[in-house]
């Protein structure tokens, strides 16, 4: 397959000027401009060469001329390092190393901002120098997943077919039937894949199997499905083993690092309920013998707010971090245990300040909030079944509600005693 470099003569250059007129130096291509008289063209070239001279000039040096692959209204993505010519048109070749460009976006997506808008354009991409026999790896157009895949292909020549899952990762998109046989077949047809490769096989991420029927893919586009490994890290080993996965490659894991990256997202969902909690604490703290006192509300509100913060920490940070080591199968129980650990230093911090009844309020707030958030974490784990989570919710939600009710009761009672 022929490779386009940025200096190769572009077929789109104006016919009335020879390509010799254009200087190619340091990867900068000066395209002849249509409608210019030769002398002004010469001036233009001189002006350009002046960039390389040691003459003083104001401001930072200008960036190189735009890539010939840029089109009006489009930019070439930072992760694209060139283009391959294929019978189905130019296919972008992606970098397999992390760039600063990716880092900023990853930070944004991981922290929960714009996580849903973090997409790659669907279609065919190339890694290395793939040919007509190279494997085709299918993935979702969730940018973090796409990035992970290309970083794991440093030693490979392969095609990546990105399917339009609306920016959602393979696993969640499978559950929502966005990563589906129909969508994959559609992308195979749109990309002209059958003209690019001779074989008729697609490697799909195993975690997409909840939404994709391999048989339906075959029916839809004639390509048969090979189920690849769960993790992108294993993809090169999988290809090297002639597309045979080991048992280990087939199993999903939930290691400490995998849990830690979920914490910021978990926390980013909390700002709305937090506003409601602050309002509730203000109201309940102000109730007292004078019916309602704003100064009391502000005065007393600090402690329950701190307890709420402690509950968040224990339920959404401590529990996910220590998940396998906290005893109990039910997440709500794990949350209560973690909450106890956090409650002790909290009470210690408020010693001398907190009343006898108020201690119970703090305890119940910490335990209920921690238990609720820990239970909410079931949605992020790869091993809880809906039947199991439903069973847990039916048992624990009445208890959590009772604890919150008791917290309010003791807090208001303390104001009257």
């Amino acid at each position: 397959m022929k490779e386009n470099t940025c200096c190769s003569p572009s077929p789109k250059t104006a016919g009335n000027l020879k390509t010799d007129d254009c200087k190619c130096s340091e990867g900068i291509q000066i395209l002849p401009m249509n409608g210019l008289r030769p002398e002004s063209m010469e001036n233009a070239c001189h002006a350009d060469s002046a960039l390389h001279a040691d003459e003083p000039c104001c401001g930072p040096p200008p960036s190189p001329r735009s890539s010939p692959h840029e089109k009006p209204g489009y930019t070439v993505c930072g992760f694209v390092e060139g283009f391959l010519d294929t019978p189905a048109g130019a296919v972008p070749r992606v970098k397999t190393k992390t760039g600063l460009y990716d880092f900023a976006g990853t930070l944004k997506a991981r922290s929960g901002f714009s996580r849903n808008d973090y997409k790659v354009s669907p279609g065919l991409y190339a890694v290395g120098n793939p040919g007509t026999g190279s494997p085709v790896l299918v993935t979702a157009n969730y940018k973090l997943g796409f990035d992970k895949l290309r970083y794991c292909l440093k030693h490979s020549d392969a095609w990546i077919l990105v399917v339009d899952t609306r920016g959602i990762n393979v696993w969640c998109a499978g559950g929502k039937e966005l990563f589906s046989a129909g969508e994959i077949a559609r992308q195979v047809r749109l990309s002209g894949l059958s003209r690019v490769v001779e074989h008729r096989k697609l490697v799909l991420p195993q975690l997409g199997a909840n939404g994709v029927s391999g048989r339906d893919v075959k029916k839809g586009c004639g390509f048969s499905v090979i189920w690849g490994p769960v993790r992108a890290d294993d993809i090169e080993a999988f290809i090297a083993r002639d597309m045979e996965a080991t048992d280990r490659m087939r199993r999903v894991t939930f290691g400490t690092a995998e849990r830690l990256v979920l914490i910021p997202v978990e926390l980013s969902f909390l700002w709305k309920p937090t506003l409601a909690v602050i309002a509730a604490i203000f109201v309940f703290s102000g109730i007292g013998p004078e019916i309602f006192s704003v100064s009391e509300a502000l005065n007393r509100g600090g402690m329950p707010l701190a307890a709420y913060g402690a509950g968040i920490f224990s339920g959404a940070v401590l529990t996910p971090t220590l998940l396998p080591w906290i005893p109990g199968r039910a997440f709500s129980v794990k949350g209560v245990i973690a909450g106890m650990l956090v409650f002790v230093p909290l009470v210690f911090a408020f010693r001398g300040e907190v009343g006898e009844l108020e201690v119970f309020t703090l305890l119940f707030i910490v335990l209920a909030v921690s238990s609720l958030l820990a239970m909410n974490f079931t949605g992020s784990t790869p091993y809880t079944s809906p039947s199991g989570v439903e069973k847990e919710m039916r048992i624990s939600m009445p208890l959590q509600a009772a604890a919150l009710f008791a917290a309010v009761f003791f807090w208001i009672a303390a104001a009257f005693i």
Partner: protein
Amino acid sequence: MEGFRHFSGVTTLALDSAACIGCGICTHVCPHGVMTLNGKKAKIADKDGCMECGACARNCPSGALAVTPGVGCAAYIIQTWLKAKNIPVDAKCC
């Protein structure tokens, strides 16, 4: 999955051995090693490991596997409760 277990005896997974043709696809797609191949028939080797993702049933060519698939997520389950009671929910999902 080593070190991680939720409740036992809850999954809706069921295998109809008579219908199974022993193709082994279920053992490839299950992310928890629930299914194994025992000679010419599939076997549920670790039922409590099942997370009801539905991958096996969707890919089984003979309809031998059945499971009620879904996401084990509290917000999602509250939505299904509300829906069952005909309370409209704004379609925000997890």
